């Protein structure tokens, strides 16, 4: 996918989610919270599918790891991050729908784990490991 296609995909799902969220918060619609989060489920589903296909490509015989794509470890982290985000959204919806009597702290644990991981990844990029020449 080109950058424009990826941007368009992200943009459309974000816009639809924001519109649905605003409608729900303003009381214009009485939909279920799981339905409000539908764009998030679809977007995450597409991302997880894309990641799974790319990871499966790594396992094919004759795969050359030097072709410049991120390694399997990085892709595994991406998949974990996606699952953590999905876990956060699911527990948040369950709490908002009063399906589970959970404290917000427990709901936020997957989000915090994901954010910490993202911070570490960004930190590694800001301060790259200095190797001796």
């Amino acid at each position, binding site marked *: 996918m080109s950058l424009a296609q990826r*941007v368009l995909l992200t*943009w459309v799902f974000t816009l639809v989610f924001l519109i649905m969220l605003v409608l729900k918060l303003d009381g214009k619609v009485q939909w279920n919270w799981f339905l409000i989060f539908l764009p998030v489920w679809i977007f995450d589903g597409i*991302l997880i599918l894309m990641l799974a296909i790319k990871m499966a490509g790594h396992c094919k015989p004759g795969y050359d790891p030097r072709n410049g794509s991120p390694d399997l470890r990085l892709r595994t982290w991406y998949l974990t991050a996606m699952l953590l985000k999905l876990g956060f959204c699911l527990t948040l919806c369950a709490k908002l729908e009063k399906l589970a009597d959970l*404290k917000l702290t427990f709901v936020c644990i997957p989000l*915090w784990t994901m954010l910490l991981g993202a911070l570490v990844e960004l930190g590694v990029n800001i301060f790259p490991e200095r190797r001796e020449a």
Partner: protein
Amino acid sequence: MLFSLRELVQWLGFATFELFLHLLALLVFSMLVALRMDLFDAKLSWWLVFVPLFAADGLSTYFTAIVSIRLYQENEKRLAVLRLLWVLTVLSLKLVCEVLLCQKLVDQERARDLWFGLIVSPLFILLQLLMIRACRVN
């Protein structure tokens, strides 16, 4: 994931360190929200909860100002002005949304006219701007 870090930096117009700063602010903010909802309730003001986000916006403005001044001194005047304008637009839209949301949460009764469509409207504008910028970057 969907975008590489380089693509994100190009698209959003923020340096990696600024992205780090905003992510860190989001982490602290979410922790404070959870603390307020679960433990402190009314004892912790919403304005205090939003402090990490405001601080990140302030620091980001400061770094952008420094980078723009350096660029200007190195005779990259067009780049300096464009960068400053873009980052200030994004940050001010984000700040307006944060302040309105905070105001709504602080006084839900008095801010009844402040509906969420209005609060989120800066984000809608930001989305359009990001789409235009994506076309240019592409």
